[in-house]
């Protein structure tokens, strides 16, 4: 039985995974971007989330951790990380959002007792454009919307069996 299933069997449902995922993301933004992530308001601004960064997990926890955000947010993330103003998207911005996703995935798995050695991460992939459908083998999805400098950011963990 993989770690996800074993922990579910012990009663660790979304009320465990979701706060852990949220905390992992908030720590990365606090430390690496010097910018807090806030909980989303009930009424979200209508924003096109056309940047998706993804990191695969394999082993005790198999699936995909992804972060979706607007291009404006992606550019701001890069600016925050580099301590310099970036004004347009490009390879450095995609690199930055991929690295943010990588750190969130690593920080998340490090918070799950016993998972670290039995779960490996892929290098990040970044997709631009919002008009696509993603089909995975996921059997469960944990997702939360957080606010990064007044822009929504959707954090998802799709878990495969």
């Amino acid at each position, binding site marked *: 039985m993989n770690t996800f299933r074993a922990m579910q069997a012990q009663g660790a449902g979304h009320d465990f995974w979701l706060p852990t995922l949220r905390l992992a993301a908030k720590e*990365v933004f*606090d430390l690496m971007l010097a910018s807090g992530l806030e909980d989303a308001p009930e009424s979200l601004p209508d924003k096109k989330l056309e940047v998706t960064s993804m990191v695969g997990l394999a082993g005790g926890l198999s699936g995909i951790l992804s972060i979706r955000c607007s291009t404006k947010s992606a550019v701001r993330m890069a600016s925050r*990380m*580099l301590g310099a103003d970036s004004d347009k998207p490009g390879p450095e911005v995609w690199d930055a959002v991929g690295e943010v996703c990588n*750190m969130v995935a*690593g920080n998340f798995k490090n918070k799950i007792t016993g998972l670290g*050695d039995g779960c490996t991460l892929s*290098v990040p992939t970044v997709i631009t454009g919002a008009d696509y459908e993603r089909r995975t083998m996921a059997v469960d999805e944990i997702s939360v919307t957080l606010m990064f400098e007044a822009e929504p950011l959707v954090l998802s963990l799709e878990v495969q069996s």
Partner: protein
Amino acid sequence: MDRLPIRTLGDAYTGLEPVGAATMDNIRTLIVDDSSVMRKIVERSLRQAGLGIAEVWEAGNGAEALASVQEHPVDLILCDINMPVMDGLEFVKQLGGVANAKGVPVVMITTEGSEGHVVQALSAGARGYIRKPFTPDQVKEHVLPVLAGKP
């Protein structure tokens, strides 16, 4: 390899020249990470930590890093683990065979935070281990003792 004069935290250490201040100067550094953004962040963190970075070389994976150290001698290496072509653990293992890199301390700086990874890295020859995400203070806390030759 000639060692640059390196200031230590105060304790003398064989092989390094202590000059008695809490900062260090003229450190030639190699930063190994497949993310160019992360390489810049690591360099900035070293500078924010008050380390006197004289030169910085960059490599995108372990194979590039091995080629770099043969051409450009360094005093300190900061290295990611998960990278394409050659990962950080393999790089550390192979670094021992590079003549002009013997004794150069390697500090891993990585998202892999499990005890198993730490043990693997230290067994392979790494001298320090920093988990991402990190602060400049954490970089200083881990790098200073390594440069001073402390375990």
